[in-house]
């Protein structure tokens, strides 16, 4: 079998991530795919600390940190600066958490996407403000425990559908990805690299301390998320949706939930409600794909 994942490591060891951090495995793969001719922009998020303490940096490519709500536009500004200086080849990648994407950063992201600024925007979604100590975000799923949605009153609202929002901006490329499917992950970043305009990649990013799960289960939870259709893998290229992994038999969402302490308080009726929501979303996705094929 041909190895499709580049062997060269751009991200080095010595970073400050928690054991089993999904966002760090994701950065490793993303940089392998994009290569060294890349500039990374990081707003306030876990990765503001993961990269290391001054004067150290683990990334191996230039990185600029920026305020919480400004990842997308800072990336656009860098791209404009590079073009002004005659550099049209370097990729600029904004790398933000769900707080910096779904919540405080959505205005700048929407602005960049509407202008179709030539950037790759990645949201590593660990479904809460994990860096500040596990507070709910609009990416936190229904029923989940966080420190601001305690077990007696877990999150009542469903997760915001960020991909639909980005899709409504009619940008050239949108993809979902997870480190449990590294070939698919790398292929998507390589494809994004070849496209001009705003490219949005939504990464499923397990957080062992925040999700109250075992650190060795990051890949396992990610794989079950795809197989249970909690987090389907798909791409939207020029508006056309294609599902990348279609589980022949969808795994029960219980298998996904039981590995994570943040869901341990859920009652049977809650789980049924979650399963129903997943089924509905999956059917919608299939319908949308079919419509695009037709």
């Amino acid at each position, binding site marked *: 079998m041909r190895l499709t994942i580049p062997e060269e490591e751009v991200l080095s060891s010595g970073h400050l991530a928690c054991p089993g951090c999904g966002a760090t495995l994701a950065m490793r793969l993303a940089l392998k795919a994009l290569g060294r001719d890349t500039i990374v922009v990081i707003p306030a998020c876990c990765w503001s600390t993961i990269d290391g303490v*001054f004067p150290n940096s683990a990334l191996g490519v230039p990185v600029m940190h920026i305020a919480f709500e400004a990842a997308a536009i800072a990336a656009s500004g860098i791209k*404009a600066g590079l073009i002004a200086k005659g550099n049209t080849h370097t990729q600029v990648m904004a790398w933000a958490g769900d707080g910096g994407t779904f919540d405080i950063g959505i205005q700048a992201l929407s602005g960049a996407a509407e202008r179709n600024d030539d950037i790759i925007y990645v949201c590593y979604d660990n479904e809460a403000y994990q860096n500040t100590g596990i507070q709910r975000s609009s990416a936190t799923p229904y029923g989940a425990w966080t420190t601001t949605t305690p077990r007696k009153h877990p999150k009542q609202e469903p997760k915001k559908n960020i991909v639909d929002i980005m899709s409504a901006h009619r940008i050239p490329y949108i993809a979902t990805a997870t480190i449990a499917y590294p070939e698919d992950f790398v292929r998507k970043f390589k494809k994004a690299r070849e496209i001009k305009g705003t490219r949005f990649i939504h990464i499923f990013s397990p957080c062992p301390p925040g999700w109250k799960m075992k650190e060795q289960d990051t890949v396992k939870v990610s794989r079950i998320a795809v197989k249970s259709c909690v987090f389907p893998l798909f791409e939207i290229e020029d508006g056309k949706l294609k599902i990348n992994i279609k589980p022949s038999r969808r795994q029960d969402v219980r298998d996904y939930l039981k590995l994570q302490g943040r869901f341990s308080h859920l009652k049977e009726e809650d789980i049924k409600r979650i399963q129903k929501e997943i089924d509905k979303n999956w059917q919608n996705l299939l319908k949308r794909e079919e419509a695009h094929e037709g």
Partner: protein
Amino acid sequence: MKKLLIGNHAVSYGAMLSRAEVIAAYPITPQTQVVEELAELCASGKLKAQFIKVESEHSAMSACIGAAQAGARAFTATSSQGLALMHEVLHWAANARLPIVMANINRAMAPGWNIWADHIDSLAQRDTGWMQFYAETNQEVLDTIIIAYKVCERVLLPAMINLDAFFLSHTAQSVEIPEQDMVDEFLPPYNPEIKLDPDDPRAFGGLLPPKYYMEMRCKLHSAHRNALKIIEEEEKNFFKIFKRKYGLVDEFYTKDAQIIIVTSSTITSTAREFVMRERKKGRKLGLLKVRVFRPFPFEKIRGALKNCEKLVVIDRNISYGNAGIFATEIKSALYGFRNVPVFGFVAGLGGRDVQLEDIEGMVDFARKKNFSKDEIWWGLKK
């Protein structure tokens, strides 16, 4: 070439002649013509810049930060609420030591909505690490943008050029527009050695623990202190080419003046007129215009105020619970140097006109009194 220019267009021409490479701006009254003119200049090819039409002022400044960190010359313009929205990233630009130049059209803060001249917007950003210039004329606006880039790129600090809403922004004045080749001679292209560069990967703005943080801030402060000297140097260089100079402060009949009026921005012109009238009557009145507010030119101010008996400071702003900000800062410059009565007048807030009669009234007030503990709100309706 001389041309009739409103202040906002003087800003646009200043940015164009400085060959700004990335512009990111968001419209706000009374700044809009700056953006419109720059869009025209870019569209016509007169200005070869990347123009990002952002969705907020916070994004305008963040785009400038990204562009400057990538090594490009960045420009933006804003006013009032827009400047306030930028506050977080104003700190970022200065702490990151990025030589961004911005024009701010001084306007009041809401509520109630007020689009007219007031200095509280920029003075509220006093401690963000930006250099602050306050311009009296449209010529000064245009020239200061060019000078500011030269200074910023030498000291690695951002600069804000402030001009009064409507009194300058929308008022046409005769402005000498410098020739491009002369500006190029004064202001070479910006090519910083340290920037975002895949061939030389560095991390900018990451975790800075207590062990390092304080040293970084002290360096920024030192850069401000050093900038006083650099501004004077570059003003000399500017004068050699263009025969115009402005100074950190502008002294007018200060040498033998018994009372000195201290102003900034357009109130200065009215005060200048009043001083000339008084001088014709043989009254020893002087004027000190504070043009550079950050870094604060302590020595120049002390030098100008070394002989006077009383001071009339006119503030188009108020620091609630304290006093007018210029008056407070002037007092700090006098501390341990001279004990001169400072009459701090708060006047012209929210665009209220400050006329010759007002300044005459303030000076009369100061003549009659020996001391005023508090600031005086001038022209308040009963």
